[in-house]
């Protein structure tokens, strides 16, 4: 039997209307063979954590261009851990200054992707780092 598709949640937390990148990513990952749950704009950290839990995704991808990543991302990481989802890979992208990356990584984010990232870069990173699947 071939390995099952990797399931990814692409979420846009906060009051951020920039959804072009998230949509480009969702379609691109679908075309790379991923199953992508897209939850739309204006997600609270609780919505993101609930979706990750119920959907049992392998990867959570947060797309943030509003500048609110330093409050939203650590909160989401906390909630995911509280739900027992420590094995879920958390990634982020959008407009995130390099200076903020170490703090996000300390909070539990495994990688941050900025403007110009190609879909195939994201796909290979996801394939290499997603938790093992039966």
């Amino acid at each position, binding site marked *: 039997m071939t390995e099952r*598709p990797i399931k990814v949640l692409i979420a846009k937390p906060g009051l951020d209307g920039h959804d072009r990148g998230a949509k480009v990513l969702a379609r691109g990952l679908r*075309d790379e063979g991923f*199953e992508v*749950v897209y939850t739309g704009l204006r997600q609270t950290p609780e919505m993101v954590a609930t*979706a990750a839990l119920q*959907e*049992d995704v392998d990867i959570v991808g947060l797309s943030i261009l509003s500048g609110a990543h330093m409050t939203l991302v650590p909160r989401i990481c906390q909630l995911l851990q509280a*739900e027992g*989802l420590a094995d879920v890979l958390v990634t982020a992208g959008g407009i995130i200054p390099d200076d903020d990356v170490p703090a996000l990584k300390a909070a539990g984010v495994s990688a941050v992707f900025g403007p110009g990232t190609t879909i195939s870069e994201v796909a290979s990173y996801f394939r290499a780092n997603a938790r093992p699947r039966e």
Partner: protein
Amino acid sequence: MGSPAEAAAELCSTALAGDRRSLARLLTAVENRTLVAEGALRRLYPLAGRAHLVGITGPPGAGKSTLVAALVGHLRAAGRTVAVVAVDPSSPITGGAILGDRVRMQAYAGDRDVFIRSMAARGHAGGLASTTGAACAVLDAVGFEIVMIETVGTGQSEVEVAAAADTTVVLEAPEMGDEVQAIKAGLLEVADLVVVNKGDRPGAQRTASQLRAMLGGGRRGIHGPPVLITTAATGAGVPELLAAIDRRRGEGALDDGGATRLARAEAEVSGALGDRIRRRLDEPGMALARGAAVREVAAHRIDPYTAADELLASLLGVETGSSR
């Protein structure tokens, strides 16, 4: 964790005790048809059968997800628990999928009595995934009172939901064409309830009248299925729809010996039989025999039916001891 059987027992116990993460992981196992899933279904199936399984189907964009969200809202206001399984198509080329139905259902985060799960159809035709029925059985077993199934946006022939659900709601939007043509025969034939959504749009009343006229003389005699109008976006008509759904229980749609559940059990048994036979055919010994048979058929030395008869005969004769 130890063996699949142990893993299944552990996940079932915690899921039955209310742990949502275990429930989610059980659903993943079911979706991937693992050995854990089989063990879990053995344990859970006897606990299922209490939930009202409600299928929501209709053309792309008719408002299925919005309507499901509105129904969830009313159910929760009444203190009733509800699970949703929302199916979206998989790309036939890459196997990937965008599961977007959740977008309209995000208001219930943090409410333990709502559980929403998206599923990719994974190449299965018919508007559902091949494992959707099993996923519903799991959600039923852990105690959700209503399990709603949103199908892939359907054409005319994706009617599988009618077998999976106790109540099939077929959604139509106004102005889908001058005549109501989008769903005609196939879908409407399996409808227990027909809903014209987007009641705020011009033509909703007209579409509903056309549907009533069309359905009046259908195979259900002069009493076709009820045709309701909703505006999922505002909630208008949704309480009436919920009442009509609830009425189905009194009409026997959930009875063990009723036509709906017998048809479902029939489909489940046939499906399991097919799975079992395919799995046996994949075992090393049989795979070899099958390869040989395929070459004989390709060379037109025997016909496919004879080959199938021979394979089936040796399958039934061979003891493999693979059943757990």
